[in-house]
């Protein structure tokens, strides 16, 4: 296996999925955002977005905080330090592979 192919094989599969890649890239650029923002920007339905967020939370890449905006429940999301590092590494690997 040459170096380029090895780099492709090393890509983080949690982040590499297109839906999750969108979420991580959007969260990377902000301190935190709510569920509605991600839904608006990614155009995913609630179920799909929730499932991707659960997967990212399991991997330790996203931290989820449940709070209230007035009387309305609000879900705030932010990338953890591990999530930021993983995304930076993913971008480096992708650049090398391309």
């Amino acid at each position, binding site marked *: 296996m040459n170096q380029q192919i090895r780099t492709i094989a090393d890509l983080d599969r949690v982040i590499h999925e297109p839906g999750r890649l969108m979420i991580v890239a*959007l969260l*990377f650029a902000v301190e935190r*955002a709510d569920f*509605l923002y*991600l839904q608006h920007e990614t155009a995913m339905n609630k179920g799909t977005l929730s499932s991707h967020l659960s997967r990212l939370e399991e991997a330790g890449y996203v931290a989820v905080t449940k709070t209230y905006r007035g009387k309305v429940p*609000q879900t705030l999301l932010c990338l953890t330090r591990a999530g930021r590092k993983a995304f930076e590494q993913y*971008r480096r690997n992708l650049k090398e592979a391309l």
Partner: protein
Amino acid sequence: MDQIGDLLDRPRLYYNIDGLGELGGSVTCLGFAVLLWLLIHSPADSVWHRISFFAFVALMLLIHYGTKAVKTRITYPRTGFVEYRRQQQTAAIAAALGALAAAGLGVVFRRHWDISMLASLAGLVFAAAYGYHFAMAVRWKLVIAGAMAVASFAIAFLPADVLGALGSDSSAAHPDRAKLGGTILISLMVYGTMLLISGGISLWLYLRHMPVPAQEGQ
């Protein structure tokens, strides 16, 4: 990779999705214009000269908290909440540009350089900054950026006596000082009005196309 870059740029563009970035800029420009006009045209011992600093601080606070309040009531319930990362680099660049502009004005005034040239240059920089920050995301705003660039030249070619009359309350004032005051005053009014129109249209379109979703929580 470009698509990832686009995604990373989305939150920056989201800041003005409702036009409030432009409306904030408009209130800043028009507020400064009013303050400057009061400083120029009121007597030296008037109350405006004593409270101008406090009026400036009040204007800044109004823009900061006003924008926050409107976003909380209009934007966050419709398209979501975003807390931006603190970018010290951006603040440092803004401070450096401000210092450079102040130094440039000081040099121009002391050496009696042509203020019209400086006005068109500053206007072009303003139009370019507007184009980068707002018009790249929404194409129709390129018309506003173009109008700003044209306005910067138009202001530079205005007769000196018109600018002098705007920038001074007496004929005894130094002509360069009066022309500089008039140029700044009319530039603030023109750019403030353009931002008001552009931001107003953006807000209207946003409210029209983004209804408040049912409040079922997230």
